[in-house]
């Protein structure tokens, strides 16, 4: 999988054979005006790759400095698209960072089955 760089955001794709998942490591800041336009095509490819390999998709936010509310909307769309494709999605965050704890705790509202897991790093 390719990595993605959009403005101040870098998403590094990792598939190391140690962790049985396709991992996306978020770094920097997601502060684009239109993150949906940037992220949706990338997420589509990543979901297709995860589905083809039969792997869950793990998004790691621990190193992310900041995201804007439009990015949260993009993550909601990813949650929905992953569920449609029956790809397990794992969102990993740092609960010691208050902003991450608040943001991701709230996303538990979508964790209604095994296809979405919110995991504290």
């Amino acid at each position: 999988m390719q990595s993605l760089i959009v403005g101040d955001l870098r998403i590094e794709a990792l598939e190391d054979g140690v962790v049985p998942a396709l991992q996306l490591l978020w770094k920097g800041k997601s502060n684009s005006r239109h993150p949906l336009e940037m992220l949706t095509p990338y997420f589509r490819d990543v979901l297709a790759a995860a589905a083809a390999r039969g792997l869950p998709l793990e998004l790691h936010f621990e190193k992310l400095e900041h995201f804007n509310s439009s990015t949260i909307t993009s993550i909601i769309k990813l949650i929905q698209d992953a569920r449609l494709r029956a790809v397990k999605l794992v969102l990993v965050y740092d609960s010691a960072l208050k902003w991450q704890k608040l943001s991701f705790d709230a996303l538990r509202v979508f964790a209604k089955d095994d296809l979405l897991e919110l995991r504290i790093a």
Partner: protein
Amino acid sequence: MTDFHFSIDLPVRSEWSNVDLLRTSVLNCFAAIFSDVEGCRALAMVTGELVENAIKYGDWSGLAGLDDQRFRLRVWGEGHDAHVSVENPVKRGDHNAEEVLRTLGWLRTFSSPAEAYRARLLDIAAAGPEPSHSKLGLVRIAYEGNCRLTAELVRGVLHVQAELTV
């Protein structure tokens, strides 16, 4: 130092790159004042979301000259109480300005900002993502920033203010 006051008052050009410049500036300034880093992050997030809204929804048609390409950002407070305020011009009859006022009224119908935030997340999922109109930023300010939000629309200027404790 107990009666210590702080204030930032800026005319800001309506350019997207200014969102992060201002957010990080506020973060750095207040990290130099307060020991509560998480509180400073919240203040910076509030600033970023309000500035984003001003740039997205302000009237930047420029019909009235260069000054109309700017909005006013103020961050001020005393002790650990902070206020962030953004004032920007809006078009006559602009539905986004009315939507801001409606969103704040909607927020008050919930027993807590957390409950309102979760409801807005579900609304976004149900409606399909329309980030330009979700007003999630305002609800996030109330929830993550634990802010009290007020807004008024006077003579074509939308004034949104958030109050929080750092």
